[in-house]
């Protein structure tokens, strides 16, 4: 199992979420983060004084999938996240050793499996 961690623009998230759902990966978690990368800060003004802001808001997407599905997730993020401008973000893949479903206490890769009904319900 791997955790795909993607830092992307806010605007990119909704198309990513929609396509992942269609592909059968409804399960993700997101966090609002601030990131700095290869960019200058932007300058803000307040009552005449200046303030340079080096951090820009990004969305961090976390999605744990079995090894075979990693590329699908990465490709979906890359497809929708790209504007071609600096600041589009990065995707990282981290190893995961074990997984549990809280509702049932089950563990192992099978808890990650896509639920066909969830995907179906949405595409309907």
């Amino acid at each position, binding site marked *: 199992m791997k955790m795909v961690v993607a830092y992307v623009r806010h605007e990119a*998230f*909704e198309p990513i979420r929609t396509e992942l759902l269609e592909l059968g990966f409804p399960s993700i978690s*997101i966090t609002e983060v601030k990131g700095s990368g290869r*960019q200058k800060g932007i300058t803000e003004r307040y009552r005449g004084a200046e303030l340079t802001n080096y951090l*820009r808001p990004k969305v961090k997407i976390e999605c744990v999938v079995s090894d075979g599905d990693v590329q699908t997730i990465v490709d979906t993020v890359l497809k*929708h996240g790209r*504007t071609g*401008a*600096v600041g589009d973000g990065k995707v990282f893949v981290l190893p995961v050793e074990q997984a549990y479903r809280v509702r049932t206490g089950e563990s192992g890769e099978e808890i990650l499996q896509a639920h066909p009904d969830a995907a179906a319900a949405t595409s309907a």
Partner: protein
Amino acid sequence: MLASLLLPATALAQEETTLDSLSQRVGALTDELNTTWIMVATALVFFMQAGFAFLEIGFSRGKNAGMGIAKILVNFSIASIMWWVIGFAIAFGGGGWLAGETGFLFQFGRDLSGESAGSADVGFFIFQTMFVCVSLAIVWGTTIERIKFAAYIAFAIVFAGIIYPLIAHWGWGGGLFAEIGSGVQDFAGSSIVHLTGATGALAAVLLLGPRRGKYGPDGRPRAIPGHNMPLFGLGVLILWLGWFGFNGGSTLGTAGSGMAEVIAVTNLGAVGGVLGATALIYALTKKLDVGMIGNGAIAGLVAITAPCGYVEMWAAPIIGFIGGLIVVAGVLAIDKKLDDPVGALSAHGLAGIWGTLACGIWASPRLVESLGVGTDGLWYSGSFEQLGVQAAAVALTFITVLVLSLIAFAIIKATIGLRVSEEVEAAGLDITEHGMYGYPEQFIPAPELEGYGALSTRTPSPGVAPTTQEVTA
């Protein structure tokens, strides 16, 4: 050039001036000035609705912040209608010790039946409309974060149509209270408006129970902080402002410029409340609790509401200060057993009782004589007579309102239900009953809101707006 628009009054006096005609003009002008003042007061008292709304919103958790707006608008509207249809008649429509009997659907028949009410009467009507709405607003603070919206509607009808009008009739409409001793002193309604509202709140909370999580497994109360102290403070400041109309307007006119005294006394009462509450809460906890200090202001104002026309200026800060002590002690004591998130039981209930009793202590001969209600207070007369009268009025008000409200709430509970389900309470009333959070962006993930429209349709032009688009170094 404007002469044609604004005819100066002198130009209108076309007919020959006689002493009589002039005297009549002066009489009319006096009426108009009185009405002008009452209309100013009406506007100020109306604005107290915003005060109550924001006091409650500030003391609510964020998930229940938006509903306060819907609540205040709908409650005010129902009360305005009920007061017009039957409340005003019950309160002020003449009649015996129990209730008035004329004036239902006030003004409705004016042009049909020829029985016409003057504009000054309308002024009194709309001013009193604002009072019933204040009393009703007091009921609800205690019940926030768990009561059903439907319960507001049902109780508002009964309260504005019957319960409050009865008490108002007894106190100000020539009813029961005029016959206790030589009359009950309650200038602007410490009991009639505030205790009545707070007693309704008590009835509600008895049947409603505390918010989930308010009491630990050991039964000890836990703090459930409201989400916004600045908005709470806005509410307090607006209420204070409105109180200048509430008490000042209760002179019902400008005779002898007496409203200036009332306003000065009201202000000193309020500042006394602030200082009393600040002193006590700091002594107890070494913290300058913002909520308690604000409650102190309200308690000072409530306490001075009955005495504001009856006491000299020096008594005002004393009455207010004690009100401030009472509200802090009251909140701490009541919190042990009853979950009153805004402290209305103390600020309007206990302080209302204290204010009513304070008349019996400090009512000044000069003012008692000029108002012609009751007798001098203990301080001047050495007699407990008026204090006894005041206590009787408090007891009567409390018991009557408690019984009627308990009946009303019990029926509501048995029929449409009083309390939302656990899930609704946990999720918050905004999203469940009103369909949307009060702060949508706080609870709805921003990415979803911004996700409309694919990125691919956008042409990035980094130079123009370097705010979402970063600038390459």
